């Protein structure tokens, strides 16, 4: 309720896996933080946090103990999940490794509701995104590192150790790259939306075969603060089908395939532009770029009360997914019967929005690789890399590392490439040249 509070959506960081240590103030007070390329603020719990249990289980910043503390006091709120962290800005020195970043603005959180941060192993977040998305327009730690001449090059890089049995979790290098943690040359792509480390991405392949959905281009964000890989539901359904992952049944999808499946195939064979097919059969309107849902109005009683249903939107998006699937199968020279069956099967494998899907641990060896095209190069992930195994032996459970995320144009379609991807591929965040680079991790 404060007029000068800035609010930004954040995440529940419990699914983030890699964290490190910083010192705040003089002498340094230690905090464990997530180094998150998907956000831009530094925040830690405040000693003035009295009414949140989470604060009693984590290190708290005491400004009275720091000789370099400067008051700011402007309030701040960071939204995550179903709640929000609130607090106020302060200024102090931050020790990262053995470098001291002076006069760093950060948020002292005074309220951390819910259990999210109560059980977290880390105390706070250190954002490595751009200032454009920073709450309160606070200058990120990384900006101050560069401006204060603390690093040689305006570049930082991540190596995340995928060997779970090794002590070393990974390494974040400020000012350059560690040559012992990658093989070959990095493939660089320009940042296309400053704020996030976002870039253009090409098609996604399953078992070496293109899915077609991102053939015309998708966007992706390299996010060290997220564990999983999130992407468009139509592609995730194809992946779920290929790896035998559970999903939810979409009745709209089944209805579209049953009623319009043959029409879609006929129109594809007649070389109708795929983007226009769903409008041509009356399930979407075409806005020049993509299908837009038609709101279906129905008479619900004799008094002519009309209510719009969400059916139009669901049928439109189901139709657009079916077009992608069928086009993909036609390009593989599948029979029409096989194509309709395949599309119908995919309707049973729709990802629950941003939910997780279980898979059979015994089936890993027969699962295909999933690949992402970045900068014209194909980056593979093997089943062992994209499946999360929880527990061992008979008790083991396996969960797909893919989750559904549908973002419409112009911002989407969008993929979030989290630790699963950054574990396989050493990632350079080149601030000076506004680009991201990927190479095989070593």
């Amino acid at each position, binding site marked *: 309720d404060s007029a000068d509070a800035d609010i*930004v*959506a954040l*995440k*529940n*960081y*419990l*699914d*983030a*896996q*890699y*964290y*490190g*240590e910083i010192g705040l103030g003089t002498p340094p007070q230690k905090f*464990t933080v997530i*180094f998150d390329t*998907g956000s831009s603020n530094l925040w830690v719990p405040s000693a003035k946090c009295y009414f949140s249990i989470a604060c009693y289980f984590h290190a708290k910043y005491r400004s009275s103990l720091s000789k370099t503390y400067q008051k700011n006091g402007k309030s701040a709120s960071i939204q*995550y*999940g*179903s709640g929000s962290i609130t607090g106020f800005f302060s200024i102090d020195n931050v020790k*990262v*490794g*053995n*470098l001291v970043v002076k006069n760093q603005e950060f948020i002292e959180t005074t309220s951390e509701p819910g259990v999210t941060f109560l059980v977290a*192993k880390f105390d706070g977040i250190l954002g490595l995104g751009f200032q454009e998305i920073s709450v309160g327009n606070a200058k990120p730690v990384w900006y101050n590192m560069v401006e204060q001449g*603390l*690093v*040689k090059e305006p570049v930082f890089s991540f190596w*995340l150790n995928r060997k*779970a049995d090794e002590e*070393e*979790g*990974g*390494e*974040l*290098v*400020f*000012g*350059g790259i*560690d040559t012992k943690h990658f093989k070959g040359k990095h493939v660089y792509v320009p940042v296309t939306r400053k704020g*996030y480390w976002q870039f253009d991405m090409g098609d996604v392949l399953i078992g070496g075969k293109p899915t077609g959905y991102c053939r015309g281009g998708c966007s992706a964000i390299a996010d060290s*603060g*997220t*564990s*999983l890989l*999130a992407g468009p539901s139509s592609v995730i359904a194809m992946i779920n089908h290929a790896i035998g992952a559970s999903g939810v049944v979409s009745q709209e999808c089944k209805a579209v395939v049953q009623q319009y499946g043959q029409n879609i195939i006929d129109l594809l064979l007649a070389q109708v532009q795929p983007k226009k097919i769903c409008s041509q059969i009356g399930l979407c309107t075409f806005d020049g770029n993509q299908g837009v849902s038609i709101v279906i109005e129905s008479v619900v009683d004799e008094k002519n009360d009309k209510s719009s249903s969400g059916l139009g939107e669901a049928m439109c998006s189901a139709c657009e997914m079916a077009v992608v699937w069928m086009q993909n199968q036609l390009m593989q020279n599948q029979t029409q019967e096989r194509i309709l069956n395949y599309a119908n099967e995919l309707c049973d494998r729709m990802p629950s929005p*941003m*939910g*997780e899907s279980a898979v059979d641990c015994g089936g890993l060896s027969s699962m295909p690789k999933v690949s992402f095209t970045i900068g014209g190069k194909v980056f593979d992930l093997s089943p062992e890399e994209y499946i*999360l195994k*929880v*527990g061992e032996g008979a*008790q083991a*459970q396996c*969960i797909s590392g893919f*989750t559904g*995320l549908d*973002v419409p144009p112009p*911002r*989407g379609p969008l993929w*979030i490439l989290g630790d699963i991807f950054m574990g396989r591929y050493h990632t350079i965040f080149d601030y000076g040249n506004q680009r991201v680079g990927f190479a095989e991790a070593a």
Partner: protein
Amino acid sequence: ASNDGLLRIGLKRLKRDPDNRVAAQLDSGSGEALRASIRKFNL
């Protein structure tokens, strides 16, 4: 920092086992953690 002018920060990792929080979140079936994890992007 080392002689090559780079600042190296060692990262720790949560182990994936049934007792850790990652596992607990993924096991919960609620998907709330995943839903929340994407919200920072204001999508």
